[in-house]
């Protein structure tokens, strides 16, 4: 076997953040090599490096054994690499043929484009690989599956030998997915090397020859797909050694706070993201949602926080102590005693350019106790800020001057947690990825504070991609798969199994894949 792509000790840094570190990988010719990992694991960065969109900070790339150095995708294309992006790079107003030859017109500039000849070439490829398409159709009139075929034909037209697919099935229907896999296999059988990025483990096992699992910018393992299981892959993807040392005393839940009943969520395009989702959370318990990202977690949080995108249709009920949350705005929901810590801290939870103390107010600036005239009562704000900084051990020397972006991820998260947990009359906390991008030192404090809030009677919905975190914190665990709870572990089960975390992780792994 010859190696089509070899990466050797490849690293990519953005500022001080390592998106990829020390990645070594070989993709053999004529195989389908899957790259799996959570969002933010570094898959996209890695493929962008291979495709010449980013330059690696260090390390080398070998294509067919030759060291290469791409300064743009143009160079990568010349070396026989092609990429199908998650969002297609097609022009809807042009025909299939025009789209395929775009950028690679088989003629001189100012010459007439030999459309007929190109069409014949395209039809040739199409029949060879079973990609039925009308070359004269407008791309805008094609289905998503057909548009993907156009993208594949584009690569074939350019004689690409190495093909990268970024989340190719994210937008496909199950039937289209089947068909796409058939195409992938026929491409492989004709000697193409394929790199497939996905986080759907079923698909990996169905179509890939080799699997590499990425986590936090590193490759944690490369194994033949035939000799692994979904459970093992899921564990490699989401598990991490947190050194979780938080003590979780038994919970004594009270009355039901959040009651979710047959919740459905259908996107504008008609894709079901939540399907008859039902669960309840009682006061003083943490309900952990275990699941691979993209199974409806974001949609659930959007609905509960009143930010479902326009055009989405929502069915079923979400009741907070009997009052519906659906259709309300975030400010109203907050007034009802709900608090939200979103997963994407910098985009949704804080204003990075505001000072630390301004961020302590953010979202709570409507509370009367902070007001004075048309502005803020600086002594009330300062008192509250200082108290929180001390209570959560936020390392920050001048909260009134330091912008939040100057703080580490862990300290930023402490600010958010302190702010949300100290809301007066909080009864429900929506908590997503509480320790994402947080250093080990801060994790312990954050976990302690979460348990403390639970003990004080707050109902907490915990969404995390870290199984270990779910196991360590949750009172009960619901396994989310394709928009509904597939299995629930009761309080007794969780308390019993917490001590043998590794076996428990494997068991959960079975329910979320």
């Amino acid at each position, binding site marked *: 076997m010859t190696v089509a792509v070899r990466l050797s000790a490849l690293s990519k840094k953005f500022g001080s953040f390592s998106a990829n570190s020390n990645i070594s990988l070989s993709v053999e010719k004529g195989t389908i090599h899957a790259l799996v990992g959570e969002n933010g694991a570094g898959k996209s960065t890695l493929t962008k490096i291979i495709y010449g969109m980013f330059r690696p900070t260090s390390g080398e790339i070998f294509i067919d054994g030759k060291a290469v150095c791409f300064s743009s995708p143009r160079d990568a294309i010349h070396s026989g690499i092609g990429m199908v992006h998650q969002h297609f790079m097609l022009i809807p107003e042009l025909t299939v043929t025009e789209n395929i030859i775009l950028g690679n017109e088989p003629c001189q500039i100012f010459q007439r484009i030999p459309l007929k000849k190109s069409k014949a070439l395209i039809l040739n490829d199409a029949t060879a690989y079973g990609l039925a398409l009308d070359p004269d159709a407008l791309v805008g009139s094609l289905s998503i599956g057909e548009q993907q075929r156009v993208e594949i034909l584009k690569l074939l037209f350019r004689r690409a030998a190495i093909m990268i697919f970024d989340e190719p099935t994210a937008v496909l229907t199950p039937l289209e997915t089947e068909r796409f896999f058939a195409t992938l296999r026929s491409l492989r059988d004709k000697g193409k090397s394929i790199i497939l990025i996905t986080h759907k483990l079923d698909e990996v096992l169905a179509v890939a020859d080799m699997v590499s699992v990425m986590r936090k910018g590193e490759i944690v393992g490369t194994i033949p797909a035939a000799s692994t299981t979904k459970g093992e892959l899921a564990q490699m993807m989401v598990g991490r050694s947190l050194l979780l040392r938080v003590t979780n005393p038994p919970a004594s839940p009270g009355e039901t706070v959040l009651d979710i009943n047959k919740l459905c969520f259908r996107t504008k395009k008609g894709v079901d993201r939540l399907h008859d989702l039902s669960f309840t959370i009682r006061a003083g318990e943490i309900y952990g949602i275990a699941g691979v990202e993209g199974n409806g977690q974001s949609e659930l949080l959007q609905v509960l926080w009143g*930010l479902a995108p326009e055009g989405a249709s929502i069915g079923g009920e979400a009741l907070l102590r009997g009052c519906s949350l659906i259709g309300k*705005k*975030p*400010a109203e929901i907050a007034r009802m005693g709900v608090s939200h810590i*979103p997963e994407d801290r910098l985009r*949704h939870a804080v*204003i990075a350019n505001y000072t630390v103390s301004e961020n302590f107010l953010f979202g709570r600036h409507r509370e009367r106790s902070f*007001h004075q005239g048309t*502005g803020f009562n600086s002594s009330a704000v300062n008192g509250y800020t200082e108290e929180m900084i001390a209570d959560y051990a936020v390392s920050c020397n001048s909260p009134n001057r330091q912008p939040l972006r100057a703080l580490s991820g862990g300290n930023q998260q402490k600010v958010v947690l302190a702010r949300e947990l100290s809301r007066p009359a909080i009864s429900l906390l929506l908590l997503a990825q509480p320790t994402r991008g947080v250093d080990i030192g801060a994790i312990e404090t954050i976990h302690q504070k979460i348990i403390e809030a639970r003990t004080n009677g707050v109902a907490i919905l915990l969404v995390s991609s870290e199984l270990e975190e779910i196991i360590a914190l949750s009172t009960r665990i619901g396994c989310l798969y394709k928009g509904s709870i597939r299995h629930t572990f009761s309080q007794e089960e969780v308390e019993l199994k917490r001590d043998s975390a590794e076996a428990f992780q494997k068991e959960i792994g079975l329910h979320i894949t």
Partner: protein
Amino acid sequence: MNRKSIKLLIPLLSILSALVVSTLIIALAGRDPLMIFGKMFHATFGSAYGSGQVLFRMTTLIFVALAVALPFQVRLFNIGAEGQLLMGAFVAAMTGTMLPPWVPSTAAISLCIMTAMAAGASWALLAGVLRVRFGVNEVIGTIMLNFIAQGITGYLLTWHFALPSTVHTAPITDAAIIPSFSALTGWFANSPANLSTLLAIGMTLLFRILLFSSRFGYEMRAVGLQPDAARYAGINAGMHALTAMGIGGAAAGLGAANIVLGYRHFYEAGMTGGVGFAGIAVALLAGARPLWILLSALFFGVLEYGGLTVNALIPKDIFMIIEALTIILVIAFNALGRRFG
């Protein structure tokens, strides 16, 4: 070097480089740059009348720059200060001519100012609503509304309100005139500088307080900095976009009051002379920060009036080049500052 000093340096550096380039241009045109700049200095700061002229121009510039700066804080680019100014000017003049002579001065002035503000605000709000409700980009919206404002005022003037064989309306009632400094105190020798200047400085301070010391400004800046986070915090981004446009438009209306009530005392075709567009430059040079707008407006006021005074020696178009160059350089230096800062 820290961020603060870079921020301070960029406008100065841009002005300096623009001056260097214009020195070259003046020299190429066969004039002595030092002589030209010297004459300009004399004609502006060197005379009471000149200083008054600069002050008057600066006042309008402050108002229109505020009209651009406030929407800028919520990431809206208001190109329509000119249209808002036109509407404000026309409405102020109409109100002023229609008021019966027995209305006391304070009431007349306040009424005219308020109608001017309302006209400017509604013209800007129109663009805001188009943006928020219908997704019409505010740049396109405000530019088009500029043309429409020109059309409306032009039509109403020539067909209905112009005095026979002139291009201006009847004068406003005496009570609605904002007194000039020279009439009150004898300063600035008959120049058009009037009490509006105090109003402009007051408004600038008010804008600063609104933006940086009030809860309203806290929300508004958050919308500009990170709209997604603002939504998550339950802030109504659309409402802030509309108020920013509305208040901005009202400021442009005040600029109209300075021209109509403080100086010309009637509405005349072409009386704004594109000063609304100069407001964009003033706001950009100041980085849309209220207090900086005072300095930036002074700089542009000097260029504008100073250019006029040396027009016989060197075409004043040169000074348009300086103004435009300064803005391009500010933007370019800012981009560089972000890359290396």
